[in-house]
């Protein structure tokens, strides 16, 4: 199973600052292993962010995103204690979902 994400969500005024780090190789299909074989594509394609029960952000990503991706978002109208749920799905169909609570 995929490794957990690290999600930080803190409130500045009524805006939640959300940072997420994902553990993922984001193989772009262009690198070679030590034997000279091309390492196949393996990358996150979709990301969903939900805050306080509402889907607020949906994203699609390609192979240009760095390994172990980091994303930052801002969501207005959030409250301390609101739950942030983030999910990703990669090109192999693997998914991972983690959550955090917005801190004041």
């Amino acid at each position, binding site marked *: 199973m995929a490794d957990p994400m690290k999600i930080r969500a803190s409130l500045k005024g009524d*805006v939640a600052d959300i*940072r997420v780090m994902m553990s993922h190789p984001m193989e*772009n299909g*262009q*690198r*070679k292993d030590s034997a000279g074989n091309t390492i196949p594509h393996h990358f996150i*394609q*979709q*990301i*969903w*962010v*939900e*805050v306080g*029960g*509402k*889907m*607020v*952000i*949906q*994203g*699609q*990503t*390609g*192979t*240009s*995103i*760095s*390994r172990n*991706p*980091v*994303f*930052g*978002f*801002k*969501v*207005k*109208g*959030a409250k301390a204690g609101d739950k942030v*749920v983030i*999910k990703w799905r990669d090109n192999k169909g693997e998914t991972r*979902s983690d959550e955090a609570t917005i801190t004041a």
Partner: protein
Amino acid sequence: MDMFRRSLLKGVSASGALAAALAAGILKPTEVLAADEWNRAAFDSKDAGAALKAIGASSATDSKDIVLTAPEIAENGAVVPITVLSNIPNTISIALLSLKNPLPLAAAFDFSEGAMPEMQVRVRLAETTAVRALVKTADGKFFATQKEVKVTVGGCGG
């Protein structure tokens, strides 16, 4: 828009949710960039023009209301931090492209329900290139801005 909740919380297939949203007239087909189905045509495009076309943005107006923050010189092409912030009213989507990468489209995000039109991402850049931020507004218009990022150590090869 809360139709999409199900795709996350209940694992309902995303395309199903999209179809439902479209059917219910909640979403117009042109409304967002990053709706449920991963846009293979756009992400597999080898040049930026084709990628833009695939997300319906063949033409875009240059705008100073998009704040694209990227280093002038990347410390390492493997990890280039980029922030895009749109001050254009009714921004619903932001996409980012690195024009000289083998596959230029890096990411496209849709914002709703209080999400501010701003995203921080870290991208790989194969070489010195312009990065282009594209904004879509609720009325289907596209705006763009771009910035050159110098890369001394490329981030794509082995």
